[in-house]
Structures are given as C-alpha cells and as structure tokens.
C-alpha cells in the first residue's frame, strides 16, 4: 500500500474547525428570533398599559369630590367598554363599601383612600390594592 501523504494536516484540520464553527454560529443566530418572540409575547400578553391607564384614572378621581354616583358611572362605562372592545373584565372600587369623602383609613397626617382594581382577560388575572394618601 502506498504511504499516505501526511503533508498539510494542520491546514486540513483548521479548515474543518472553521467550517464547523460557522455551522454552530449559524444555529445560534437562527435561535435569535425565537428569543425575541418569547420576550415580545410576554410583554404583549400582560396588559401593563391598560392596567396603568385604569390606575391613573382612579388616582386622579380619588379624594377630590367625586360623588359615589360618579364612581359607579365610570365603573359601568369601563366594565362595558372593556368587555366589548378589550376582551377583558375590569372592575374597581374606591374605598369599597365604606365610601366616604374622608377615606377608609387615617392617621395623624393623612387620610388613606383604598383603591381596588381587578382585571381579567382570560390570560392575565390581575388584582391590586393600593392606599392613596391624602394630606389632612
């Protein structure tokens, strides 16, 4: 058997390594959209902006002189509009059943208004309760 020509083994090996390296890089790059998708979907599925919108409206409504009627009105508007357009069930209460102009809790310096928000769009079920201080 004729002897194998063993010249240039380093060149051949480096060629293989570079070729395989390119394959692996291509695979890593092809996974990038997948990573972006999970991030983007999780951002879009949690309705951060809608919840912040509702919270902002309630905070500006609280502790001024909104009557109980006004609170019920807006709750009805929001519940119907969110069900018909945003596929979500939204309800809230300010100072719950203890509604009064004086807030639910108080200490020496502040009144605290108790705001409850409930949000459910089938994917995200979100509830929050916050105490909004008002200077006495």
């Amino acid at each position, binding site marked *: 058997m004729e002897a194998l020509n063993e010249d240039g*083994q380093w060149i051949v*090996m480096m060629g293989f390594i570079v070729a395989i390296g390119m394959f692996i890089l291509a695979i890593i790059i092809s996974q990038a959209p997948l990573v972006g998708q999970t991030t983007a979907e999780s951002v879009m599925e949690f309705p951060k902006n809608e919840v912040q919108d509702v919270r902002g409206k309630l905070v500006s409504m609280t502790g001024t002189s909104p009557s109980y009627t006004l609170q019920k*009105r807006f709750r009805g508007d*929001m519940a119907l509009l969110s069900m018909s357009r945003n596929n979500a069930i939204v309800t809230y209460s300010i100072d719950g059943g203890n509604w009064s102009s004086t807030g639910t809790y108080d200490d020496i310096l502040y009144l605290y208004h108790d705001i409850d928000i409930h949000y459910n769009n089938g994917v995200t079920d979100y509830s929050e309760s916050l105490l909004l201080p008002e200077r006495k």
Partner: protein
Amino acid sequence: MVMNDEGQLYTIEGITAGVIMLITAFTIFNTGVVYTPGDAHISDMQIQQLGYDALLMMDTPDENGPMYESDLATMIRTDNGSWFASVFSSYLTKETGATDIVDSLEYNATVYNRVASGTGGTVYSHAFSHSAGSATSQVTREPAISVSRYVWLSDANDLRSHYGAAEYDNDEQMVLLEVLIWRR
C-alpha cells in the same frame, strides 16, 4: 514507547463525517419550525408601546389638578379629529435625529361610548380620525395593532351633540378611544 500516529487523516475524516451527519440530522429536525423576525411579534410590541405612549402623553393634563381635562379629552369632546391627527402623527414620527426613521405608520381611531338604552348596556362607535394615507396604504397592509385608552369627558352633552347619543343627560362620562396602528 512511541505513540503510533499513522492514519491521522482517516481519524479526522471519520470525526468530520460524524459531525456532518449530526448537523444534517439537527437541521432536518429543525425545519419543522422556521421563525423569521417578522413572526416573532417584536415589531408589533414596539408599535403597541409607541401607540400607548403617544396616547398617554396626549391624555396628560396641562395642570396637575384632579380631573383636569387633557388635550385628548378636549379633542374627543369637541370631535376635533384633525387636531388629534396632527398631534398623534407627530408623536408617531418622533426621532432622536441619530438615525433615519421610516415614516410608514398608518392609523385609524375610533371612539366607543356607552349609550342609554332600555335593555342595559349598548356601545356606540364613532369614526374619529385616521391617517392621511394614500388609497394603497389602506388596502395593502400588515396586521394592525390595537391600542386603547379610557378618556374622561367632562360633559356628556357634547357627546350627544357630536356623536349622536350618550349614556347620561349631562355630567361626566368615560369613553374608550381605540386606535389601530399598522405599517404600510
């Protein structure tokens, strides 16, 4: 003892063949799911956030009074769609100046309000404003992204006169502004 180093090239060739077969198998099993950046909703997320931010800025009152009417509320209360169009369009095309922005976003805004009826809740819609795009841009388009914002109106009588109906005779009412945004 001297190591026998004959046939190294055959060894390398064998390893290479093995790796190539593995990569082939990997590639074949991966062809079932092919993602492109367009499938990944990344641009959808960006457009959605842009829209929400634009509406948030427009719905921020000039003064820090409670229940103070914002520009957006004034636009809707007086049915001033052209004012909305100029402000919203400018917010959609805001840029830092560092890069060229592709000004290709179109939108269509609709106001939904609850109206009084004998049998519980009914929702009316009112075509409020849309971008001044060409006819082509209204037909050929990417899927639209929906952004919305509740807007507090100080007087439902304006709603009745501009939009045809309202839930209450007068006094405040909450309406929903829904904007569909898409890239043409």
